[in-house]
């Protein structure tokens, strides 16, 4: 079987790569959002140690 660029396998691999890219982009968005919320919240502290000390 020849592997031409249009083979179904290439679509599958593209789908897989696209899926991973979207997951990573979503992860960046979630971590960025979390960081913004944590830093702008009123109770923001650098560590529990400082909070107790």
């Amino acid at each position, binding site marked *: *079987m020849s592997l031409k660029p249009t083979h179904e396998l290439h679509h599958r691999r593209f789908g897989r790569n696209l899926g*991973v890219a979207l997951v990573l982009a979503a992860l960046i968005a979630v971590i960025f959002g*979390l960081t913004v919320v944590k830093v702008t919240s009123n109770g923001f502290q650098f560590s529990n140690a400082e909070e107790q000390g």
Partner: protein
Amino acid sequence: MSDASYNSNLYENEASFGDYFALLKPRVMSLVVFTALVGLLAAPVSVHPVVGFSAILFIAVGGGASGALNMWWDADIDRIMLRTKNRPIPAGKVRPEEALAIGLTLAGFSVVMLALATNLLAGAMLAFTIFYYVVVYSMWLKRSTPQNIVIGGAAGAFPPVIGWIAATGSMSFEPWLMFAIVLMWTPPHFWALALFMRSDYDDAGIPMLTVTHGRRVTRVHIVVYTILLAVLAIGAAFSSFGGPLYLAVAVVLNAMFIWGGIKIWRRDEDMSEADNFAVERKFFRLSLWYLFAHFSAILVEVGLHSYGLGGWA
């Protein structure tokens, strides 16, 4: 066989993104997401929507990691059972080592991220849940005791507790009540499945109650559990997350569930085989609605509380 044909077979089985996603047991994950969400929203504190969303996401990822590790460990029996033979590893789409790597990575990631996003106790609870499901249930007890489903049910019952702890940072009685409902619901749910997926567990050598103690005993166990569950589920109406609406839902559904259990108990194998286990299949479908409706009712009660309605006050 030529190299070309060999490679062709290899490529035909190459996994798609969906195959990797299937490793995470999306249907189980949807139950995890829903019950964890109810636990988080029922907690008596307000959570920032982004933090709440992240907490549920990381709990879901932790649940998915458990699923991948379970598939890695159980690949040998998944190949035998009709219900599981098309899973990514037995289907030859994903190699066991890949599932192990994905499971371990996602487990570590989800625990650390949940702890950072919410609190250490929630992260620790998620870590314990993954450990419980993978090591205590999958590796140890699933293949050694007919009470495997009862014990395994605990793993699926932890998410509302984790959701609650993610919101509050502390333990409390209410999420454990939700835990108890899921725990008591799991055995009749799976035993009904075991009744109509007749030879699956037998073929795989899993000591399900149907195999070790017989199908008659399993039918008795189902009806006993539906009664115990009803006491618990209806009693929960008088807790802080309960109210008249939850009580109405619980009374109706538990009456239906007990009636379904009684019908299963009154049947023998000849009657079941005559209609291809219609009653058992109906009971199994009802069990799915049962859990969804109870947790939805909790969600509605909690929503009403925030408008000064709902509850008993």
